[in-house]
């Protein structure tokens, strides 16, 4: 019989994708370990896109709505998903949350996944692009430890490069490893604190939206 175990999730992800496409909406699944800077990146990106395109955000967290509150201050539509202990978003949870998102009014949707480098790699959501944030304090060995995640993303953002003078992180070695695992990946070193590198990431994002 040979059946993919994640087939049910995959089918639901296809449904989400259809919904995005029929609304002409570009969806980005943003993943990282906890504290790598997903919310900070969204805030920086919103600042950079202000007045240009309408953006919405879905916040996935195990509990609390702290991140959603931070983002709603920017005046963009935010929907919080609490997974209640679950370590990742799945296509079904996202589908339910999409009911509360004004899809037709938006051009870009950020889906902030639960901070975790393992499970979100397996559960696709119907997104157009998969983006991973890896940050300097985490160390440059993460691709070896979480190969599936690094192998399945379209872009890797190296956040907190303002900390490079204080920490041991070899950007060249890291980039070589990631490129070796994943030929198509784009790598963007940046800092959400200083804003360095944000423009390059944003112009890539806009180019992907077509």
């Amino acid at each position, binding site marked *: 019989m040979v059946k993919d175990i994640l087939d049910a999730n995959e089918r639901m992800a296809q449904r989400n994708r259809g919904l995005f496409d029929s609304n002409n909406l570009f969806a980005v699944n943003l993943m990282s370990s906890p504290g790598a800077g997903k919310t900070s990146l969204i805030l920086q990106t919103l600042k950079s896109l202000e007045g240009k395109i309408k953006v919405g955000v879905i916040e996935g967290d195990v509990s609390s709505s702290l991140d959603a509150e931070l983002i709603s201050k920017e005046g963009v539509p935010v929907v919080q998903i609490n997974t209640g202990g679950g370590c990742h978003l799945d296509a079904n949870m996202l589908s339910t949350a999409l009911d509360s998102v004004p899809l037709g009014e938006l051009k870009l949707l950020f889906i902030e996944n639960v901070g975790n480098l393992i*499970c979100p790699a397996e559960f696709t959501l119907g997104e157009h692009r998969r983006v991973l944030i890896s940050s300097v304090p985490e160390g440059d060995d993460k691709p070896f430890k979480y190969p599936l995640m690094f192998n399945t993303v379209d872009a890797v953002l190296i956040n907190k490069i303002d900390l490079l003078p204080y920490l041991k992180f070899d950007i060249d070695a890291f980039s070589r490893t990631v490129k070796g695992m994943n030929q198509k990946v784009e790598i963007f070193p940046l800092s959400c604190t200083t804003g360095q590198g944000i423009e390059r990431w944003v112009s890539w994002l806009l180019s992907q939206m077509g």
Partner: protein
Amino acid sequence: MHELSITQSMLNLVLEQAEKAGAKEVGKINLVIGGMTGVVEECVRFYFDFLSRGTPADGAILSFKAVPTRAKCRDCGKLFEVGEFDWTCPHCNGNNIEIVAGKELFVESIEVE
């Protein structure tokens, strides 16, 4: 937690297939798990034990076929097994590689009564 959702998805799939086949009981489930998925056999067994209780799959034997992560070097064309901390080609030392196996996560077959 990773294995909990995966085990639940696997069980749903198995029960669906068993029902289609008109089976009363699932005797054995043959799984294929790639090295890159990070799915731990012991965790799947643990979760399966309580998730399957009271279902036709209760007591089914779980059989795991592990698929090592393998890659093909795009420079020299050779196939090799990927080491834990070494993603370079052992033949030419290149790192221009393509994963050819290790992402498997499927139910190969089930045995029902």
